[in-house]
């Protein structure tokens, strides 16, 4: 379901994961790089990406990690999830990173490398370039 959790307007390149992300345990708060060997985004940097993933998991303290990567200029410019979880929601709110949820179908259609723009004031939230 479409929800706007944190509003904003950005344009960028998609980095997509079908695995959920545990921000506290597996994202380096300086570099924004995923350090979990078993994660599909292992060693990938989320810096300046439009990060697309199902939802966040793990401790709510992970919200501080999102705040940290934003402060260190290594954060995504937006996040798009299938399901809203409180860790990612509050983390994006702290860091002022636009966050929306979308339907399963739209989630499936988005691929890594796509260029898209997100505008939470527009009736169509996502425009594909």
């Amino acid at each position, binding site marked *: 379901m479409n929800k706007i959790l944190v509003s904003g307007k950005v344009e960028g390149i998609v980095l997509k994961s079908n695995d959920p992300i545990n921000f506290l345990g597996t994202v380096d708060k300086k570099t924004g790089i995923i350090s979990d060997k078993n994660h599909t985004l292992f060693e990938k940097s989320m810096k300046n990406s439009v990060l697309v993933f199902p939802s966040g998991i793990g401790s709510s303290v992970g919200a*501080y990690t999102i705040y940290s990567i934003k402060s260190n200029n290594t954060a995504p410019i937006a996040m798009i999830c299938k399901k809203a979880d409180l860790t990612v929601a509050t983390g994006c709110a702290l860091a002022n990173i636009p966050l929306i949820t979308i339907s399963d179908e739209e989630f499936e259609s988005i691929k890594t490398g796509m260029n898209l723009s997100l505008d939470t004031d527009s009736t169509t939230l996502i425009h594909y370039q």
Partner: protein
Amino acid sequence: MTLELTREEESALKGENGETMQMAYRILVATGEATDAEKLIPIEWAHLSGVNYNTIGDAGEEFLSTISKDARVSVKTTLNPMGFDIDNVSNYKLDENFISKQLSIRNSYETMGVIPSFSCIPYEIFDIPKNGTQVAFAESNAAIHANSYDNLKTNKESAFSALASAIVGKSPYSSLRKEDTPNITIEMKVKNPNELSYGMLGFFAGKVGDTSVNISGLAEMDQRQCKAMCGGMGTSGTCAKFNFGEGDSNTEKIEFDEKEMQNVHDELNTSEKGDIITLGSPQLGLDEISDLTAKLKGRSFEKRCMVFLPRTVKEQAQKIGYISELERAGCEILSDCCTCLTPLISKDDVDAVTTNSIKGAFYLKNSNGVGVNLKSLKEIVEDETR
């Protein structure tokens, strides 16, 4: 469903009342959307978690230091325990960095106008507002106690939604703030329960329940047993309310019997004996301190026993003479901190800890990485003192 904001709330979200207020509204809106709230409602009391440097780390310390420059709480706001008791921190092996970061966190909260209560039992040390009052409690055992025993209304808030609620004076109207009908009834079948049994019942209920559960078959409980149940439930899941009674005929019935209790016991009890003892998680209140003092009359612990309590309780207990009596019996008295996520117990020094706290057991096992030996207070006094 979408969150509807008033015109004033909309303009605060756009930043017209400054960046900090804007961020606080962003947190409430994001939390509200994630939890299907249709509006924000006023709250009268916020209780914050996210105080212990051991849990929030450098990122938390830096964040609080930054926002405390201009963030101020607008309602009564109280605070969870921190990592140590400044009066005796030198007795424990904590490094300078930990101490200075923790004091910075304390300073940030005080600057924001938070009452430095450093307690996970706000319901025992502050007056309870009138029935039905909306509050925002982040500490899980306190949220459950507020909803189940104190006739208050709160969600199980996150550290962030509680802080934002404290600044704005409002919370998202979602989940447990509304009428909530549990779909599960747990039947208490264990005979002659002590505080450990109630803690394990709470732990079991937190696992099987969603946002709230009915509990039937309970006898009269004392304060220690109520707290044990709230502590256990807050540890194992997202459930944040007990309703006492059978529930209607549509609810699923689940029995909590000796076998289920043994399962919880086997999950948390990993050691036959402990090197030290901890009492408190949740922290002990004045009644429990009084009872402990009576139980220890003429007896002394044969190993270290850490006793965690709020500073206000320690001050009252000092006046009555309990503290000197407990110290005579070998207790280490610690205020402002608690067993849960304590940096004062390290697996480098300790193999296993004896406790009567299910909440304490869970975090000692999973966070401190030490063994846990579960015993009721009665057994602890019988076995560990002479």
